[in-house]
């Protein structure tokens, strides 16, 4: 079997092209911050980024001016407030948006993952429809004559996700909250995965139910412990709610945000630098914090 381990630099350089449509994993849990930051460091332009519910990682990608279009159900800083860079870019019209709902984004990914160009749904038939999806078509069930919205497939070029473990061949193990991470990855043409820990194939085979993506679908694996910070990884570390709260203040101000990005993204040339920025006190606190279900090993 092929060894698919890579550096974060090579994985992004060899798999992502300017203009790509990128699904970004993580639903509160397992957000691939460090892996996705590499898109910024390599300044890969004109990207479309998509997922159902997006948080501050989307804000950072938008602020870095590498995003042309956002396809989403929600973009914000959960409980804390708005995604300020998203709001600014939207008002300046420096990004295009395609606005759906969380369920419809997930059903769009599911259609692509099932290999069909649409699936019917009961949603998006009433209420105001954003102008960019006002062309949404209906379909009639040939058996019941019921009307459904026809949710079109969304097949990203590539998915970037973070998970707990993988073997070097690319069998990916994940547990805890998934959201649309696995569905989005499996809908995509290519998949790159950063993990907390690379484990042996025999360890994988001991718990095949934990494997959510099989090796033949994965392009590259990168071991990036703490790569999901400030989100969290069940069994490894908790969420840094304070980081999210402070980010609200930071991102309201474009200058403050620039130095945040210099600090946390551009200058964090490797995962050790990123860990240094988090700091040992915080690391200890988050390792001891509530973090879902512990690794059973």
């Amino acid at each position, binding site marked *: 079997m092929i060894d698919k381990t890579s550096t974060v630099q090579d994985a992004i350089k060899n798999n992502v092209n300017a203009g790509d449509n990128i699904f970004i994993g993580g*639903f*509160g*849990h397992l957000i691939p911050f460090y892996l996705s930051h590499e898109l910024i460091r390599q300044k890969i332009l004109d990207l479309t980024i998509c997922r*159902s*519910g997006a*948080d501050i990682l989307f804000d950072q990608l938008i602020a870095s001016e590498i995003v042309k279009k956002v396809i*989403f*159900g*929600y*973009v*914000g800083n*959960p*409980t*804390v407030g*708005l*995604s300020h860079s*998203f*709001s600014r870019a*939207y*008002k300046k019209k420096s990004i295009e948006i395609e*606005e*759906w*709902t*969380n*369920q*419809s984004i*997930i*059903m769009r990914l*599911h259609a692509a993952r099932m290999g069909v160009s649409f699936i019917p*749904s*009961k*949603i*998006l*038939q*009433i*209420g*105001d429809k*954003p*102008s960019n999806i006002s062309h949404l078509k209906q379909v009639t069930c040939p058996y019941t004559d*019921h*009307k459904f919205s026809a949710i079109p497939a969304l097949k990203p070029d590539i998915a970037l996700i973070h998970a707990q473990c993988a073997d070097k061949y690319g069998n990916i193990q994940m*547990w*805890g*909250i*998934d*959201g*649309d991470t*696995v*569905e989005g990855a499996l809908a995509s043409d290519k998949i790159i995965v950063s993990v907390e820990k690379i484990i042996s194939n025999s360890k994988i085979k001991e718990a095949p139910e934990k494997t959510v993506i099989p090796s033949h679908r994965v392009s590259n694996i990168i071991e990036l412990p703490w790569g999901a910070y400030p989100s*969290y990884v*069940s069994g490894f570390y*908790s*969420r840094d*709610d304070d980081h*999210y709260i402070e980010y609200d203040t930071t991102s309201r101000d474009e200058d403050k945000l620039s130095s945040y990005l210099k600090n946390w993204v551009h200058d964090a040339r490797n995962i050790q630098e990123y860990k240094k920025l988090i700091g040992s006190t915080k690391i200890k606190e988050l390792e001891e*914090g*509530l*973090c*879902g*279900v512990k690794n059973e090993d």
Partner: protein
Amino acid sequence: MKIDYTEYSPNQRIAIIAASELVGYKSCFVGIGIPSDAACLAKLSVEPELNLIYESGAIGALPLSKSYSTGSPSIAHGADMITDSLSVFSDLQAGRIDVGLLSAAQIDKFGNLNSTVIGDYDEPKIRMVGSGGAHDIACLIPNLIVLMPHDPRRFVDTVDFATSPGSGRDIKKIRDQLNLPEGPSILITDKAKFIMSDEGWLLHSILDSFTFAQATEGLPWSLKPPISGPIETDPAIISALAQINY
């Protein structure tokens, strides 16, 4: 038992009233914030059978500490089941989840909810977070309860953008044609409970300790006197309040 509701914060009062409404339900689609608090409160007191379902895929948790995201560790911790969002939304669409709780930035007379833009969609004054799962819940859940702090700026005649569709005569007719449930049927503020009618929200009842004037102050809808006496709260709900770490 006479309860002085002014001892509780507006959000606590909403959670108290909402908890009463959850009696008899087995499964509840909840979002983070007041909806989650209300559902926890009900489960701890008057409806122990209630299974909390988060769109992140967590089912059966009872998060008693502050959670920021529907995917937060506190939501995963203590769950009976963690599945994916597709599964939860499938259950929702199949009518397998009994009741849902929603909040929003704006609400109008027919229960349309706005979490998308203040102002024009293409040239907004404020660009907000978008639907998330709110539109989906408002379309699909058989019983929908809306929770709104009594902030007159958030109560409007017609929302700037109907992210989550409402109810009332006209919308219900379309819902019927599309085989969708009837939409929001109850609105709870920190002072009163409203119910949906063909003509829009009707004042149903007022929380003890508050007056009609307080319960309707600044609301843009022409409101008749409440059709029912004051809201009674099971003391078990009040006792359970202490367990929730707001």
